[in-house]
């Protein structure tokens, strides 16, 4: 069935006693203010929690009750294990790897709480785990997190130095610094960062 307003397939349907039937695609339904099903649930949640997800790397994540050390460590915007950036999650609604939950815990916790009607902790089945206690993380998340935070900090410093070098017309030095920035950015963004298969 076609959408009443455009050529897309209609996936949202509304029946009213007075107005009859409406058949719209998700985009047109959102525009018309109709409730759209869970395909967009995550997108809506992200929009509602944009404040916590937009926290800059230099600010501590205040909504992170389970991470008391968060005040000392800057909030991470890139997962140290898989290189997924928080901005990528904002766009797709999908995280990159299990470690993203630890890396972005402060930013994700309010969103998860909202998505699950106020629930903050799992109860129910727990799996057998290879590394001792159930679900012990496979990499030292805290260490990896600190490392990534350090890299992000270093990027800021390097970028500042590039500006200074250019201003002082030290172009060779600026080029070297730029190469260093690129190297770190690639490390942070690579899906194989940390080689999780081994």
């Amino acid at each position, binding site marked *: *069935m076609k959408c009443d307003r455009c050529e897309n*397939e*209609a*996936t949202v*349907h*509304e*029946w*009213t*006693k007075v107005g009859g039937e409406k058949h719209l695609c*998700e985009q047109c339904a959102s525009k018309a203010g109709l*409730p759209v*099903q*869970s*395909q967009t*649930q*995550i997108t809506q*949640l992200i929009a509602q929690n944009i404040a916590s997800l937009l926290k800059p790397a230099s600010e501590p994540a205040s909504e992170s009750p*389970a991470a008391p050390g968060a005040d000392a460590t800057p909030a991470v915007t890139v997962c140290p*294990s*898989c290189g*997924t950036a928080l901005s990528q999650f904002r766009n*797709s*609604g*999908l*995280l*990159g*790897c*299990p470690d993203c*939950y*630890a890396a972005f815990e402060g930013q*994700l916790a309010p*969103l*998860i709480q909202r*998505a*699950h*009607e*106020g*629930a*903050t*902790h*799992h*109860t*129910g*089945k*727990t*799996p*057998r*785990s*290879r*590394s001792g206690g*159930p*679900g012990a*993380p*496979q*990499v030292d998340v805290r260490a990896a997190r600190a490392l990534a935070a350090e890299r992000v900090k270093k990027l800021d410093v390097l970028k500042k130095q590039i500006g200074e070098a250019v201003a002082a017309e030290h172009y060779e030095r600026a080029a070297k610094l730029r190469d260093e920035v690129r190297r770190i950015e690639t490390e942070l963004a690579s*899906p*194989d960062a940390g080689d*999780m*298969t081994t």
Partner: protein
Amino acid sequence: MSELGTVFTSDQVRGGASWLRTDAGDSDVVVSSRVRLARNLAGLPFPKKASKVQKQHAMDLIRARLNRIKGLGAGDEIIGRLQWIDVHQTTQSDRTLMVERHLISKEHARGDDPRGVAISFPDEQVSIMVNEEDQIRLQVMRPGLQLASALRQADLIDSFLNGVVPRAGGAAGEAEMDRSPDWLNYAFSPRFGYLTACPTNVGTGMRVSVMMHLPALRLTGEIEKVRRATKDMSMAVRGYYGEGSDAAGDFFQISNQTTLGKPERVILHEFEREVLPYVVDYERKARLFMVQKRRTQTEDTVFRALGTLRYARRITPEEALPLLSQVRLGILAGLVTDVKVSTVNQLVLLVQPHHLQRLLDREMDQDARREARAELMREWLKPDASASA
């Protein structure tokens, strides 16, 4: 073997799907039940982020473990061997056919990176997608309202994959650790539970859903109340083909929205005892109302639908589905007596383009399909053939 694909034969398609049987509880309203668990392996990125090599690696690990399933469980619920299908290597026709049969999702049918599905043939009630949004999407389907049975089986398979197996010679429910080293180490956090690519699935990773046939609520305009009520109870109402799909032919899928904070059994209990009975009851009352208070109007709708299906010479799925829905209502309301509900249930599957082509074992253009579909309706709904299937 058909050139269209090798996963299904024409006979298999003709035989229908066992989860559409009509001998189970409440099957007048609840067509089928489904429990789905989402799982990922620790130490590997989720499929969307994984490289081809990582996807293949995850798939090899999962497949090796799946391969060891044989005769798991007991009695009617025993799970025999699962058949593995490399989805990325199957024909487009096979993939779409599996989507139409609810064995894989539309998303899983797309793309050529390593991806697969393990299916319990011949009943097709268990299907385990590998490398969908999560590495493992395990689903168990049942005819009628049988969520507890579906959860039992899903739980058993899940535990087996995770290296927890029923104790040999032990009582039901007794388990022990599997000594063989190939069990799967799941990604899990004590706080967020089973970790999934999308945070809306964390916790139990469990989605319970039922496919309901609600023609009377739709015809009386009450369906919007159900939508609102279920939404208030954090349930999602979706179409026949799941997320983002059309509520074709008044078949609605209702499922839980939240997966974190409650144990599996509690989620299931609330869904089954506190939500569904009201919807089932509401639909039955609406059917009664239609037959008692608006009899002629209802008969008119039902018999026009049956007439069209019995005599049309060309028909699209979009036209056929609502008509089949009205005929199904007519049978259950006692107005139509020479057609079986099971026949209608199977026709709902068979009207879909790839089912039709596989049934007749030939590729057809749209016009040819419309004619073939109309012929199929005439053959299966013949006035004197009450039990054609």
